[in-house]
């Protein structure tokens, strides 16, 4: 293992980050009291976060190599090992996951009252699986976590969801499963093509034949595109988001849909560089379509949560656009935008959950004048609105600007069209903000009305505070986060641009002609 940096801390930091939530959920099995369950879950998520903090401080930003690597033999006869480690691409996601998990527990404090214990077990299991996906360096391990994620999420939607929860949860499950199964086929093929190894780092240095890369790319694309979700396979997202409980939506928006983009970065690009370059034009077009399409659909939404869900489609379009622009600014912007989207949309779903607890409605037209009724809420939501719109000084701007810059550099027309998405974004977000917060208060929600609506309390402000802090932190000083990525992104780009088929684009074209 000379191409990685082994964990040099005196404890296995990554394993602990993965396992602590598991221990927590096991502990919860033996608890009955809802209050105790909540506190235990909170303590375990906090602990996990605290444990993962040294990752940020001890991380060596100067190298693209995997760090904090732990390796143990697992099933040696099949070449399966327990290898975990992180690099500049995954570190921020681990951080995002651990922080959002805390907030998920906090936001469910009052809103979840049925099956409290099971709910928190699901949240903790989810956290472990998500961290696991980001740190796995072995395909088997990765796939294990990838699928393990599905179950708690399925339960979160299906058990604690809204009115149409069964439809949404099954749709979510089937959609992602279809993708994952194709990915499994891809993994098996890679296992044999790559000399019977499942080591991700080894596989990332192969140069496979073009034909194989082509099909493998499609197989992986199926899994990742569904997860992102990219344009034609996005319809599970609005349903899942709308029906999921707040914590579920936050996890879904904050971390789960980042997995797809992460998959592109970690697998598709370094393992199948030639196929990636071949598909880039298609993928960029799909991304732009997603940006504009998602934004346009938002104009027609009548449901608060559904609108934000569709806006995720648009924002994730930006992310994939940045990634496939395949230059430093685009990729770094894409990764940063993933973090941003996790923060902004995560916080928005938190806030939607909070207001839903008070009003019990998500229909936009039933709101109105809330700036007067809940001024603090309005103020905080305003910050998020403008972060989502991409106003300079908030994190949304840095990400979107870098992405558009990268896209423009790669292909002008794409950059121009994606910038149009920002105009549309301002349109639907401001419309939403106006409908919810401006004009006269809806009579039902006046203070003396039948549903008294009260402003945010301390717990809720504390829940939102870290995310709002991050909004401005990334907005004003993004280098804290960008500096982690530089080395890894440079390495990734050089890997994709390296090829065994340099200057033989017509060969590739010929191959495709042969397929059809």
């Amino acid at each position, binding site marked *: 293992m000379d191409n990685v940096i082994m964990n040099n801390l005196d404890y296995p930091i990554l394993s602990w980050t993965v396992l602590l939530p598991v221990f927590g959920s096991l502990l919860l099995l033996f608890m009955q009291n809802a209050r105790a369950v909540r506190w235990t879950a909170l303590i375990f998520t906090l602990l996990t976060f605290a444990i993962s903090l040294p990752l940020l401080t001890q991380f060596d930003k100067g190298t693209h190599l995997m760090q904090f690597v732990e390796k143990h033999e697992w099933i040696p006869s099949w070449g399966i090992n327990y290898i975990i480690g992180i690099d500049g691409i995954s570190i921020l996601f681990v951080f995002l996951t651990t922080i959002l998990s805390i907030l998920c527990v906090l936001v469910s404090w009052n809103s979840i009252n049925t099956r409290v214990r099971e709910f928190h077990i699901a949240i903790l299991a989810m956290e472990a699986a998500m961290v696991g996906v980001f740190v796995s360096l072995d395909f088997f391990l990765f796939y294990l976590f990838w699928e393990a994620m599905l179950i708690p999420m399925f339960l979160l939607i299906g058990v604690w969801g809204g009115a149409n929860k069964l439809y949404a949860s099954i749709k979510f499950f089937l959609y992602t499963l279809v993708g994952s199964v194709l990915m499994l086929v891809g993994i098996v093929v890679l296992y044999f093509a790559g000399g019977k190894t499942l080591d991700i780092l080894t596989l990332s240095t192969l140069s496979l034949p073009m034909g194989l890369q082509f099909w493998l790319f499609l197989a992986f694309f199926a899994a990742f595109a569904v997860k992102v979700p990219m344009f034609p396979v996005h319809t599970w997202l609005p349903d899942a988001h709308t029906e999921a409980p707040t914590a579920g939506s936050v996890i879904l928006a904050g971390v789960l849909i980042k997995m797809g983009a992460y998959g592109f970065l970690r697998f598709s690009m370094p393992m199948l560089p030639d196929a990636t370059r071949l598909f880039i034009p298609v993928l960029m077009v799909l991304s732009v379509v997603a940006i504009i399409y998602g934004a346009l659909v938002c*104009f027609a939404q009548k449901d608060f949560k559904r609108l934000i869900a569709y806006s995720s489609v648009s924002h994730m379009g930006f992310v994939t656009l940045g990634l496939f622009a395949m230059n430093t600014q685009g990729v770094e912007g894409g990764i940063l935008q993933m973090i941003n989207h996790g923060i902004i949309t995560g916080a928005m779903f938190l806030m939607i959950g909070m207001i839903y607890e008070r009003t019990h409605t998500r229909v936009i037209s039933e709101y109105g004048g809330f700036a007067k009724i809940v001024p603090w809420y309005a103020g905080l939501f305003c910050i998020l609105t403008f972060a989502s719109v991409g*106003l300079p000084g908030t994190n949304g701007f840095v990400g979107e600007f870098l992405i558009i810059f990268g896209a423009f550099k790669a292909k002008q027309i794409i*950059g121009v069209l994606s910038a149009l998405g*920002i105009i549309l974004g301002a349109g639907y977000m401001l419309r939403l903000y106006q409908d919810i917060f401006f004009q006269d208060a809806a009579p039902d929600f006046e203070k003396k009305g039948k549903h008294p609506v009260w402003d945010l309390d301390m717990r809720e402000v504390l829940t939102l505070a870290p995310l709002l802090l991050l909004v401005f932190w990334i907005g004003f000083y993004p*280098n804290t986060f960008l500096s982690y990525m530089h080395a890894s992104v440079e390495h990734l780009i050089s890997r994709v641009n390296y090829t065994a088929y340099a200057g033989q684009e017509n060969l590739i074209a010929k191959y495709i002609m042969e397929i059809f």
Partner: protein
Amino acid sequence: MIKYTLIPLLPLIAFVINILFGRNYIRDKAHWVAIPAIVGSLLLAISAFFDVAGGNVININVYDWIVSGDFNVSAGLMIDQLTAIMLLVVTICGTLIFIYSVGYMHGDEGYYRFFAYLCLFIFSMLVLVMGNNFLVMYFGWEAVGLCSYFLIGFWFNKKSAGDAGKKAFIVNRFGDFGFGLGVILIFLTFGTLDFVGVFGQAGSFAGQTINFLGWEVDLVTLICLLLFCGAVGKSAQLPLHVWLPDAMEGPTPVSALIHAATMVTAGVFMVARCNPLFIESPIAMNTVAIVGGVTAIFAATIALVQNDIKRVIAYSTVSQLGYMFLALGVGAFSAGVFHLYTHAFFKALLFLASGSVIHALHNEQDMRNMGGLKKYMPITYAVFIIGTLSITGIFPFAGFFSKDEILWRAFLAGDMGKFLWLLGTIAALLTSFYSWRLIFMTFHGDFRGTSEQEHHLHESPKVITVPLMILAVGAVAAGWVGIPPLFMEHGDKIGEFLAPVLGHPSGHGTHAQEWFVVGISSLVAVLGGIVAYVMYVKKTDIAGKIASAFKPVHALLYNKYYVDELYDTTLIQPVMKASDKVILGFIDKTIIEGIVNGIPNVIGVFSRKLRTIQTGVFGSYGLAMTVGALCIIGYLFFQR
């Protein structure tokens, strides 16, 4: 260094304090936080003005903002002569309007919020003018738009206010779309976004072409036009002018500060700032000039027939901004900035004075319900007259010098310039007419409002009138720093001061020509006033007769050339319809969902057929199992 950083930072701190503690603790004492902050900024700005007056330029990089690969932009401040002028304009107008707001907004339940937003606006505007690279400028550019959104929609329980704020923000986004692309293109061309670096290389890229979306276009022209898109949006030029009149939904001090004196002039400032780029591209320069000239006339004609007092002034602002762009477009950058500077005083004065009127009439804005106010509000009347004299360009008021400079420079700029000069002069005639019309309708004749309003008529308190008087002094005297050589050798102090940044305008004419220009413009200014006097004081029935005689024209002007309606039918409605019916209804719900749900449905049909096999009777399962075993046996037997 900390001194210069503090200039924008003080208002920011005031904003944070007010927004966090205003609601529960500070409440109606918010101005005690805001005013010291802006006065502090004003003092620091004056100090900075003297620092750069000697000719040196302050350029500080505070920290690295965004670093990604070769893309490296710092958050930095630059104060040169142009910035110094802008700093003074912003902080002086800001201070006066803050003081005015104490009186005007007294008792409003969002008092603290108002001052918080104003502080944020001042911060943003200062960042905009002080940025040392395009991205920091873009930051300020967007942030002032945000504040504008907040302040236009300040009374958010009015639907029109919310709509207007949203409209302003989104229309500006269209402009910023171009601006943002321009910034990206600048970086890709010059490899840097620093003003110093970009402008230093501007000459070397002149004449280069680039393939943009399939067209071969001149690189610098493209950059300039993209940047100009931003200016068109922010400064409400054709065709993105539609937001500014609606923005009058905001409180009057906001209209004065943001939508007259400072923010809307950001576009002018930006083009002036980028003059080394624009100079390299004649096409871009001509575009700027023509857009400015046409807007000047276009907006002035609309202003002729409007009845809302603030809208008249708003269209007048659009028209005056057109003047400034006209000046920039003919290469007279310092003249444009000079007009920006004088315009800040007299237009802020006009707005605040109209605010005083509105305040006295309890939020009545329709001039048809005013009249005869001069005996009730003598001070307001007086300052209104001063402002009007200034805007119409009567010697020796401030507007005279700046407007005259622009027309003179246009006159000198070739054949195209003559045409532009003609546009400018006609616009001056119209300006004079509608300005006096406003005065006569508001202050002369008999009061046409309700008797209850008449009963409450009174002059505004001192906290309102004192800033008005100070601004009136400015509206008279601000132009004396730019006296043309015709009247006084070396009288053009401001031109000389700005020369290191903006250069000297080219073109020389004879004294006779200059006297001609001055004479014509003064003549039309007086003429417009006389016509207005005749129509609205002497023979008040003429106005109605003319209106009915030219009914289509009047309707066209009254409805602002139907531009809003045009956008509504060609842009907004199609987008809404498309999103609802086509995209969501058809593509999303029918095609994609159809496929997604169709596959399970097909499977469902099969499985419903198939599940009848599942009788649940274990006898039949046993039978099936045996048959299966038999098949295996048979297979093994016959295979051998």
